[in-house]
C-alpha cells in the first residue's frame, strides 16, 4: 500500500483541547457521560457539515452506545491501541464512522483537531473506517454485514490465546437484512461465544425508509433468541440502561448476548430525528448552525 497519510504529529493536527483525553478507564458518572454524549453529537455534526457528506442519522443514534462503551465498559488504553489485553470494539455499521472517530478522539486515540480532516484527501479518517490506518479502528467497514463474523474471529483468537478480553460489535438494524449477519449469529451461538456481545442500533430507519416498509426485520429480539443468543432490549439513549445491559452481558455464560438498543435516527437534532432523508445527507451551513445550537 502506498497511500500517503498525513502524520498525526503534524502541527495541523494540534488539538484545540475541547475533549480531555480520557486515558485508561475511569469511572464516569452517568451525568458526565451525558455531557460527553452531547460533545460527541456536536463533533459528529461539525465533521459531517464540514465534509459536506456523510451519515448523520445513524451516527447520532449510536452516540450513547459508544459513550457507554468507550467511557465505562471497554478495557482499553488509547496510548497503546494494540494492547493485547484490550477489549475490542468493532463498528460493523461503518457509515457511523463520524461517531466512532469522535469517540476515539475523546478517548485520546486521535488529536481532536484531526476530526476536521474526515473524508478529505490524505486523511487518516476515511469516509468509512479502515483498520491499520486509524488508531483504535479494529476492522475496515462500509460494506454491511461483516462485523459480527469478524468479531467471531477476534473472539475465537482470544479463546485460543487464553486472553480475557471481550468483543463488542455494533450493527445497524437495516444491516440485519444481510444474510451474513445470520450466518454469524448461528456460528457465534454454535461456538458458545459468551465473550462476544452484539449491539443492534435499532433506529427503525434505513436508507430508503422505515425498516417496516423496506424489509421487515421484526420480531428482532426473538430472531436472535431463536438463533441461540440471549437478547436484552433497552432504550439505547439511556446511558444507564446501556451500561446495565452491557454489564449483564458480561455475566452470561455459554452463549453470546445481543442488546437491542431502541434508538431514534438523528437523535438530538430536531429536523434529523426520525427523518430518513438524513441517513446519508450532510447538513448545509444553515442546518449545521441550527443543529449545533440545539446541541448546546
Amino acid at each position, binding site marked *: 500500500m502506498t497511500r500517503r497519510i498525513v502524520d498525526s504529529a503534524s502541527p495541523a493536527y494540534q488539538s484545540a483541547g475541547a475533549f480531555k483525553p480520557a486515558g485508561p478507564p475511569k469511572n464516569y458518572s452517568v451525568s458526565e457521560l451525558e455531557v460527553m454524549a452531547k460533545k460527541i453529537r456536536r463533533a459528529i455534526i461539525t465533521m459531517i457539515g464540514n465534509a459536506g457528506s456523510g451519515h448523520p442519522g445513524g451516527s447520532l443514534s449510536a452516540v450513547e452506545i459508544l459513550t457507554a462503551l468507550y467511557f465505562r465498559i471497554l478495557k482499553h488504553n488509547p496510548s497503546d491501541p494494540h494492547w493485547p489485553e484490550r477489549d475490542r470494539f468493532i463498528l460493523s455499521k461503518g457509515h457511523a464512522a463520524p461517531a466512532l472517530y469522535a469517540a476515539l478522539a475523546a478517548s485520546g486515540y486521535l488529536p481532536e483537531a484531526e476530526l476536521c480532516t474526515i473524508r478529505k484527501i490524505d486523511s487518516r479518517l476515511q469516509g468509512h473506517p479502515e483498520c491499520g490506518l486509524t488508531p483504535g479502528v479494529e476492522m475496515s467497514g462500509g*460494506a454491511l454485514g461483516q462485523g459480527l463474523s*469478524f468479531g467471531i*474471529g477476534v473472539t475465537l483468537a482470544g479463546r485460543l490465546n487464553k486472553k480475557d478480553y471481550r468483543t463488542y460489535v455494533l450493527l445497524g438494524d437495516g444491516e440485519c437484512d444481510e444474510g451474513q449477519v445470520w450466518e454469524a449469529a448461528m456460528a457465534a451461538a454454535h461456538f458458545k461465544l459468551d465473550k462476544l456481545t452484539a449491539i443492534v442500533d435499532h433506529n427503525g430507519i434505513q436508507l430508503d425508509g422505515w425498516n417496516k416498509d423496506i424489509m421487515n426485520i421484526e420480531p428482532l429480539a426473538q430472531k436472535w433468541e431463536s438463533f441461540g443468543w440471549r437478547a436484552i432490549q433497552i432504550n439505547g439513549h439511556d446511558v444507564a440502561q446501556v451500561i446495565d445491559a452491557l454489564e449483564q452481558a458480561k455475566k452470561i455464560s455459554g452463549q453470546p448476548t445481543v442488546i437491542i438498543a431502541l434508538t431514534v435516527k438523528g437523535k438530538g437534532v430536531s429536523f434529523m430525528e426520525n427523518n430518513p432523508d438524513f441517513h446519508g445527507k450532510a447538513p448545509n451551513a444553515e442546518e449545521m448552525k441550527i443543529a449545533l445550537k440545539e446541541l448546546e
Partner: protein
Amino acid sequence: MAQEMSTRDAYGQTLVELGKTNPDIVVLDADLSKSTQTHLFGKAYPDRFFDCGIAEQNMVTIAAGLASSGKVPFCSTFAVFLPGRCFDQVRMSISQPGLNVKMATTHSGISVGEDGISHQAIEDLALACALPGLTVIVPADGVEADKAVRAAAEMIGPVYLRLGRPKVPVIYSQDYQFKIGQASCLLEGQDVTIIAIGILVKAALDAAADLQKEGLRCRVLNMSTVQPIDEAAILKAAAETGAIVTAEEHLAHGGLGSLVASVVAANRPVPMEFISMKDYAMSGKPAELMERYKLTAKDIAEAVRKVVKRKS
C-alpha cells in the same frame, strides 16, 4: 513422493506438518473438509479447526478476525465459492486491510469433471487477481503445492492458493526451490515460450517434447505465482524467444493470458496465443473435457506452431 498426487492432497498433508511447529496456524472450512483435505488438520488439531458450515462469507470474515488477532488462518472451500461467493468479504475484510489470511481453494477448473459448470471454477483467478495486494499462487504438482503452502504460511499478507481435485503427475523433485513471485523455467529454449500454470504445466512439457521432434525449441515457464507476476521472466522470454503461448485451466479474461499479455503489450510486444477456456463447459470425465475444450498438449503444440508463424 508418489508419481502422481493431487495438489489438494499435498495441501492437506502439509497443513498438518505446519500445525506441529506453528501453534498460530488455524484452519477453517465450509463443510467441505473431506474434499479439501483440511479434515486431516481438524483430526490432528481439533481445537484449531473451525468448520463454519455452508457459509463461506462468514468463514472468510471469521478468518479475517483471527488474522487481525495474530493467528495465521487457512480457509478452504471449492474455488467456485471462494472468492466468488464471498468476493465482497475478501475485498473489504481481507484484501483492503492486507490481513494475513490464506485462502486455499480446491476443485478449480474444468478438471472437476462430472459435477458440471456450477462446480467448475474458471473465473476465480480473474476475481482474485482483481484485488491489489493479494498474492495468487497456482501450484503445478504436489511438490510445488507443498512448498507453496509453506511459503504462504511464512509470508505476511493475504494469499490465494488455487488447488485441484485430480491426481496429477509429479514434475518437481524435492530439491526444487520455490519462491513466491518467481517463475520456474522447466525447459530452456529459444524459438518460443510456453507459459503455463496448474495442470497445464505438464501438458506444456509434453507439447514441448513433441515440438522438439519438429525442430522447435520451446522454453517452458511455470508461472505459479500469477500475482505479483514475474515480469522479468516474461520480458526475457519475449526478448529471447519472440513469441509466447499461455496455457491455463481458466478463462483468458483476467487469468494468466491477459496478465501476461498486459506485461508484453506494455513493454515488448510479441505474437501471443492463448490456451484457455472461452466459455462454460459441461459435465463429463476430466480427460474428455480437457480434450473437448482444447486444453491438451496437442492443443498447446498447435498454438505454438501458429504463433511461431506469426513471428516477424
